């Protein structure tokens, strides 16, 4: 009975007479038979001039149901869907705008009432989105938890590393002293000493593995000076090549492939270990390796800790991951907080579409957009850049890419980390108001 009453009450609302195109909320301004005052108060006209297809009011309020006023708007009730306003220029233009067809009452256009269908679809999609948001939000909580733990670990590790760095630097200093001492005597003496050092120094004691586990492709990629063909793009394939065809190697294995890297690495290492050039032999390779591994790990940790992974570090899990999307022509690859690349599907070199720049969403949702900048330059244009739009999803995946302007890419990316706590999804009562 209550339901019936409610329905009756709602039904009676339909019966409320009001001029065409007027929303219920403004019904009281349009009183049948009484002079109408333009809503801006500019003038008062007889009621029969409301909707008489001539614009009398500056604000267009006397013609809510015709196209006579250039600035008017028409209210579609759209029962079953969402009520909406359309510009009155869309009344009787032969194009169906309102799903309830009320905008085309005199144009000869044949419109179908699609409101119920639209309403159903919208509810479905809202439901779906809410589910996604819900699950996504749960995942996000997990991510936050993991991120916080990971961060603590890393901070601790960084502390350790800083400690051992000092320690090691002391050792380096000691070595330097020994070396310098060794340089004093005659050449023969020096050689003897060198041999002695080799025996004395245990590589393992200062192995990078004590501070960092492996040497991996992403680590190498951050060292563009190692690019074997120096073409400006140091690709993963090239990095893998340096590592002997695998993604990462432990220190021992790295030692064996070091010779590949050595030449390239010389220049950088020179800064802080200038003396090794004097020293031959395996020892010096190990020494470099130590510096290399140590340096990478130290810097990576520092860098990682410095990133803005969101208010609760929910985006931290994206770090050092990459996500691909294959289109008809290209393979796009998004490595969050690192860079975006594009590679032709059927061979050809990789193009950098931008390196991590900043969060660039609007003020109220700054984490909804990522900006990658300073990619490979364009002819006569700017360097390539990519805008990544984040939307809530259970899975972390690149859903589309486009290039709206030359060299300005747009990527759609779903991930749980952007999910917001879903609002209570009861269809709000106002939607029923105008049934």
């Amino acid at each position: 009975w209550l339901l019936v009453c409610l329905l009756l009450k709602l039904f009676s609302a339909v019966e409320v007479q009001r001029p065409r195109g007027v929303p219920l909320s403004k019904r009281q301004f349009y009183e049948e038979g009484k002079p109408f005052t333009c809503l801006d108060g500019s003038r008062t006209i007889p009621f029969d001039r409301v909707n008489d297809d001539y614009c009398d009011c500056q604000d267009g309020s006397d013609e809510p149901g015709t196209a006579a006023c250039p600035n008017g708007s028409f209210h579609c009730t759209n029962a079953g869907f969402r009520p909406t306003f359309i510009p009155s220029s869309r009344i009787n233009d032969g194009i169906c705008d309102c799903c309830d067809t009320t905008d085309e009452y005199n144009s000869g256009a044949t419109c179908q009432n699609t409101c119920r269908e639209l309403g159903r679809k919208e509810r479905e999609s809202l439901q779906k989105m809410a589910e996604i948001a819900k699950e996504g939000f749960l995942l996000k909580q997990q991510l936050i938890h993991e991120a916080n733990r990971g961060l603590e670990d890393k901070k601790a590790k960084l502390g350790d590393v800083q400690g051992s760095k000092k320690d090691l630097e002391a050792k380096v200093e000691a070595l330097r002293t020994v070396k310098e001492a060794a340089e004093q005597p005659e050449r023969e003496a020096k050689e003897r000493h060198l041999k002695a050092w080799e025996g004395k120094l245990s590589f393992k004691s200062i192995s990078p593995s004590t501070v960092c586990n492996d040497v991996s492709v992403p680590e190498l990629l951050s060292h563009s000076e190692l690019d074997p063909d120096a073409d400006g793009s140091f690709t993963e394939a090239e990095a893998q090549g340096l590592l002997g065809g695998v993604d990462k190697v432990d220190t021992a294995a790295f030692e064996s492939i070091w010779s590949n890297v050595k030449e390239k690495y010389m220049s950088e290492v020179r800064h802080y270990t200038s003396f090794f050039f004097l020293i031959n032999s395996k020892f010096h390779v190990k020494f470099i390796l130590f510096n290399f591994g140590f340096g990478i790990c130290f810097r990576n940790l520092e860098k990682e800790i410095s990133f803005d992974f969101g208010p609760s570090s929910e985006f931290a899990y994206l770090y050092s991951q990459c996500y691909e999307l294959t289109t008809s022509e290209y393979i796009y690859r998004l490595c969050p907080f690192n860079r975006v690349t594009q590679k032709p599907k059927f061979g050809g070199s990789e193009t950098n579409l931008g390196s991590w720049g900043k969060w660039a969403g609007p003020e109220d949702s700054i984490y909804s957009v990522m900006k990658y900048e300073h990619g490979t330059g364009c002819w006569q244009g700017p360097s390539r850049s990519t805008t990544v739009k984040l939307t809530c999803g259970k899975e972390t995946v690149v859903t589309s890419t486009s290039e709206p302007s030359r060299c300005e890419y747009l990527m759609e990316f779903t991930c749980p980390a952007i999910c917001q706590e879903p609002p209570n999804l009861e269809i709000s009562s106002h939607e029923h108001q105008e049934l």
Partner: protein
Amino acid sequence: MAPLLVLGLALCLSGTWAVDKGNFKTCEQSAFCKRQRALKPGESPYRALLETMELTNTRLTLQLINDNNKVRLLLELYRLQGNITRVKINELKPLKPRYEVPDVLIREPTTEPLSVLSQDENGVVLSLGVESQRVIISARPFRLDIMEGSDVLMSLNSRGLLAFEHLRMRKDTQADPEAEKKEEADPANQAETTKEEEEKVEDGMWEETFKSHTDSKPNGPSAVSLDFSLPGVEHVYGIPEHADTLRLKTTDNGDPYRLYNLDVFQYELYNPMALYGSVPVMVAHSAQRTTGIFWLNAAETWVDISSNTAGKTVFGKMLDYVQGSSETPQTDVRWISESGIIDIFIMLGPTPKDVFSQYASLTGTQSFPPLASLGYHQCRWNYNDQEDVKSVDAGFDEHDIPYDFIWLDIEHTDGKRYFTWDPHKFATPKEMLQGLMDKKRKMVAIVDPHIKVDGNYKIHNEIRSRGFYVKNKDGGDYEGWCWPGSASYPDFTRADMRAWWASMFAYDQYEGTMENLYTWNDMNEPSVFNGPEVTMHKDATHGAWEHRDIHNLYGLYVQMATAEGLIQRSGGVERPFVLTRAFFAGSQRLGAVWTGDNAAEWGHLKISIPMCLSMGLVGISFCGADIGGFFKSPSTELLVRWYQAGAYQPFYRAHAHVDTPRREPWLFGPENTALIREAVRQRYTLLPYWYQLFYRAHVTGEPVMRPLWVEYPQDLATFALEDEYLIGRDLLVHPVVEEGARGVTAYLPGKDEVWFDVHTFQKHNGAQNLYIPVTMSSIPVFQRGGSIIPRKLRVRRSSTCMEHDPYTLYVALNLQRTADGELYIDDGHTFNYEKKEFIYRKLTFANKVLSSVNLAPDAKFTTDSWIERIIVLGASKPSKVTLKTADGQEKQLEFDFDASMSVLTVRKPGMNAGADWTMTFQ
């Protein structure tokens, strides 16, 4: 191969932001121009052989002889209907036929009787029939004067610059070049060489090299040249296309104006270099008379202009006047073409509109465009895929900005194979077109004339197998580089090729197309990236003719074949819309023209006015410039100003280079979106006026956008104005084209005129320079007192959506309290107007009565549109307003009167726009 092309383009693109002048010839570098320009004014070697004169009723022929080389020419003289004199000069007995331009004249012009008034051994005097006009042919030396009464209107060969390089056999100089050099070097031989002066072989006569390109010139020298003197004339106009002032400059201290259709990368402003199109028509104007010269020749052409007053200061002119020693001002013009014949039409006016109708009687009038094509066009290189098109289309609705056409540039094709769609990006073109059609909008897709050489491409295979390609000098299919890489060029000079091309636009041939898809012909100069001056080799052949002969005609033929295709696909029902970049005399019959690849600079916005005015003067009314500028990225201010200026130019299309950031109207913040929306909406309210002006242009040949002097021919102050212009007779536009402008000074012509600001309705007197303060929303436009302009104020999302909407009539009263105007209505898109299916009415306000009478009683058309409002500017307050309709019924109308602005608004008279009615203001 593709990377190579990209590299080539890249090199090209990475150059400086200015034209590379070195890619294009100066007169000095163009052998025939250099040879001809070396001839100085003096006594002509040509003599008229009066004894050879033959006169039929309508045609006079006469032989001319060059006393230096004894070569004879045949002069033909015709008097044509409408006060036109045609003079043709060809070799009497050319070694082989010389090219005479076909397909430009709409028909063989109607001749009128000629009669000899007097004749003696010095010459002949012929009557031209009207107003005591006579032609005097002087025999020794040959010259031709056209007189009216005692005034010389125009003289030909008065400076003795008639030159005609007769076709000749090649002397075997090549075989022994050393000997020739010796001869030239040896002073002893000089007497002998001067004796046979004309036979002297100069550099570039039989072969010419520019940059890395050699022109083989198998026919040798073939240039023609003639001078014209225009006494009393200080202002000449026309001969587009040049990025230069409306009033042509003298060329004594630089290169002549060049007419040679070229794809000029990043063209420079204010110089006489050739651009994409050529119309060899010059209009001369003085306070007394307007005349025109039409030089019908499609080969490379140069035009020199000099003036006896050009160098004089104002003081010098005054001194002449005071001392009474003033020689009459005079402009001298000289035309030089590389091949063909001399075929000139002297249009004798005397008014500007007479010249327009004379020229229209020869080459036709502006095609009557579909109404929608006068709306706003949204273009970009490129809208990337169907999704992109959809979202831009939605953007216009979201921001409530009307538009009619969205455009697709070359990237929409499958690998630059025209007539195809990219299978991934435009997989379902019909679906896309249907989506646009559902919103009553349309699309334009590009079809360029260069055809990818690709054995898997149907169009290429068909053209090749039919032998329709232009041939290179060795007889093979001509190949050059363009967008698709290696490309060949169909021989559009062939009627059978054009018919085949037209058939390719049929819906079952051009797959994925529908009736709301129209066409854009770009690169039809033709552009050949690796050709001489980025165009086709002159020794390429079109059947019997060299490309040299037909060059400036190629683009016209491309557009002709395309427009014919669009007509045919609809069974002859629908009007076509085809935009072209290259053009020639007669192109006005085929569609719209734009000013090519301009740049996002204030100077380019500014020059769009004189460039389109110049085209309008020679028949091409449907002209526009890329809104925003093609190259580079406009500042927001420039973009807004360009939208505002463009709203008041005939062809209204925004376009942008692929390398520029997006610039759809809503990307610059809500304030600027609103400014652009307002500009576009102003355009749409005025569409009824634009449309009826195009109807007028189609009927009469009058330009739609016209310089002030066309309407105020005696007002010297208007002769060089190019920062303002008239649309029709009644709207004066002075757009803001300066950065940071705080105001503009508009000249309002006519000492008996009044002008009403169309936005404020404020009245201003004529014959004054009016300073108008401007803000970013200002577009200074004035309606002439004495005019009635119809508008549709219910702006909708496309012009088609506005079809049945009512009109508001703007009646602007002059000092005599009268006004008149017209109202033209038809279905907006078919040729049915040719079957008299239209409404054409005369609106008159006189003696306090406004009336609508039928101008075309035999025409039939009905409209749903009605008159919703009448706004009378400069009105006084009536006590009552009465409408009387055709059925004799009378009714009182309500009205508002704004005493402060003297504006009377009549409320909802409600009569049908096609009906007879009178409205009395008592």
